[in-house]
């Protein structure tokens, strides 16, 4: 990686618990030093997971730096791979484009990360806000002055990459991208929950790349079959990570209360103008102050004024899960549906006041369960290669001509994880109504 860092003159450095040091350039430093980027220090990476794993206190700031570093290491691994078929090394602009995209990928995150974004942005996601911020002169002028087109960064992060950026897009937003690579390790390390760990040094040797044979010569990422187990181990790490960290049962209860709490304060939407489903204006001064600290101050203030949800958010109370099941269980699936319907029809229960429910897909592979999403081929088969699926460089042993195939053809783990993910079904109630809810559950499942 040193040669890439030298090429872009990354002469500044900062300590990091995972990588030792993270290096960055003058322009990257200028972005990091903006108040809008510094704000990420005050947005927790894992929202209220800290109420489950007390040391999960790290921020989007350190994750963003980590993704920039990790993306560069992955790119370096691609260009040093023994099977790579790329005629020239990446130029300065390509490396910078990748790094700016990685550094800024979470710039639009709202307080408590994913938990509240739909409320703040009227249904939009933080990516829309990231795109808006990157186009603002406060950020775009720095990128431009470093010779990079801010529109290319926006396009990469908005998932509208031109074909020439296909490989960079895979590194930033692919199935096993730098974002996932960093958060799995970082969240596992800093929360103390070991789910999410995998063999990182070996992972960095995973990817290779090749040029298309056509006139365009665009680059495509691939994995050699000898490294298949590394790719698979990351999926398994992600599976356990999802179940034990972001979708942890107790944390999900706090997420539901947080969403309920914020619903009473529509003024937090004021900085964002959404017209016809598009973010048209953001008060960036106001946005810069809108962080976890501000919401937490509000929670403390409301606690003193007897807001019913504030005690939960200060860890003085918690919701009671009365059913925690998944689509793996037909009985559980049915019980969840029947219980929710029964609670909605019961005069003693009001949704959002006495009970909450959530169904959550446990996505491991992007696009899992959608291989037949739009069409099965005439013979009923899934398409030969699902878009976005990793290519495998395979010989099926030694002495045969290698071929590039969809990784699912050779990996039992990928083949199974790509099927429809299971969904978690949970119903929570306030403590005072727990016994009554359990009675209803007993009735509907009798």
């Amino acid at each position, binding site marked *: 990686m040193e040669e890439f860092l030298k090429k872009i003159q990354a002469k500044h450095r900062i300590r990091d618990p995972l990588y030792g040091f993270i290096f960055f350039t003058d322009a990257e430093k200028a972005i990091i030093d903006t108040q809008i980027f510094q704000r990420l220090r005050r947005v927790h990476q894992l929202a209220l997971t800290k109420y489950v794993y007390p040391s999960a206190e790290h921020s989007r700031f350190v994750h963003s730096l980590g993704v920039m570093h990790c993306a560069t290491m992955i790119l370096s691994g691609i260009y040093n791979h023994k099977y790579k078929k790329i005629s020239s090394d990446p130029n300065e602009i390509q490396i910078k484009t990748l790094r700016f995209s990685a550094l800024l990928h979470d710039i639009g995150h709202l307080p408590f990360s994913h938990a509240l974004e739909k409320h703040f942005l*009227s*249904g*939009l*996601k933080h*990516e829309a806000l990231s795109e808006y911020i990157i186009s603002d002169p406060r950020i775009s002028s720095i990128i431009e002055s470093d010779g990079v*087109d801010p*529109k*290319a960064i*926006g*396009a990469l992060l*908005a*998932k*509208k*990459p*031109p*074909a*020439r950026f*296909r490989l960079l897009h895979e590194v930033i937003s692919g199935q096993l991208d730098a974002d996932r690579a960093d958060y799995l390790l970082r969240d596992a390390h800093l929360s103390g929950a070991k789910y999410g760990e995998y063999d990182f040094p070996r992972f960095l040797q995973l990817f290779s790349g090749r040029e*298309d044979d*056509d006139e*365009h010569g*665009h680059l495509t990422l691939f994995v050699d079959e000898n490294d298949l187990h590394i790719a698979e181990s990351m999926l398994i790490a992600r599976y356990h990570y999802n179940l034990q960290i972001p979708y942890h049962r107790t944390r999900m209860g706090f997420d539901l209360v947080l969403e309920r709490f914020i619903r009473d304060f529509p003024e937090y939407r004021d900085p964002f103008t959404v017209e*016809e*489903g*598009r973010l048209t204006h953001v008060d960036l001064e106001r946005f810069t102050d809108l962080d976890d600290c501000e919401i937490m101050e509000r929670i403390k203030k409301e606690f003193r004024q007897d807001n019913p949800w504030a005690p939960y958010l200060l860890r003085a109370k918690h919701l009671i899960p009365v059913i925690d099941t998944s689509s793996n269980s037909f009985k559980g699936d049915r019980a969840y*549906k029947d219980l929710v319907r029964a609670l909605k029809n019961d005069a003693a229960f009001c949704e959002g006041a006495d009970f909450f429910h959530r*169904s959550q*897909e446990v996505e491991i592979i*992007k*696009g899992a369960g*959608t*291989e*037949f*999403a*739009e*069409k*099965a081929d005439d013979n009923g088969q899934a*398409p030969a*290669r*699902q*878009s*976005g699926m990793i290519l495998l460089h395979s010989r099926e042993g030694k002495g045969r001509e290698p071929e590039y195939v969809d990784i699912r053809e050779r990996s039992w783990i990928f083949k199974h994880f790509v099927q429809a993910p299971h969904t978690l079904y949970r119903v929570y109630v306030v403590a005072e109504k727990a016994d009554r809810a359990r009675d209803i559950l007993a009735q509907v499942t009798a």
Partner: protein
Amino acid sequence: MDPRELIVGVLQALQKRGAPLTKIMIHKFMYYLDVMGVRAGFHFEPYTYGPFSFDLARTLNTMVFWDELQLQESKNAYEIQDVSKYPPLERTIGTRIDEHLKTFHEIAGSFGFEDLECAGTTLYCSESLASQGASISARKVEKEFKAWKGEKYPTEKIRKTFERLKPHLPFS
């Protein structure tokens, strides 16, 4: 607006016009609506058969789970079941959807699978170019299209689709 209200409005408009309620029809037409300013906030990205929204797919699955829609045996198309809990769309939005559907039909040529894939991909490539600040031309769109789809569709078909689409693009 709850995005499911727009989905219901779109499905009813499709049904009224005799268009199939297939997954590809819903994804490609909702993407077209999104580009034209009738948005539910779904995020579309390049996928196996053109632009596709995982959020939309998830929302449709949830509607099936709660018996608001039913997935046909083929798994590729829906039937509307009980959607009475969703209020009807404002008349102006409903009218816009009807008009856009008519135009989208003209652009695609038909609501067959290949025509929808080709129209959706052509629109996506145009939008991708526009988002980079590039000017849009038949040649550039065709190049992007082929970099994504290879030779799956002949140049002539891509160009004709683009020519029909071009007057309606909200960007140049």
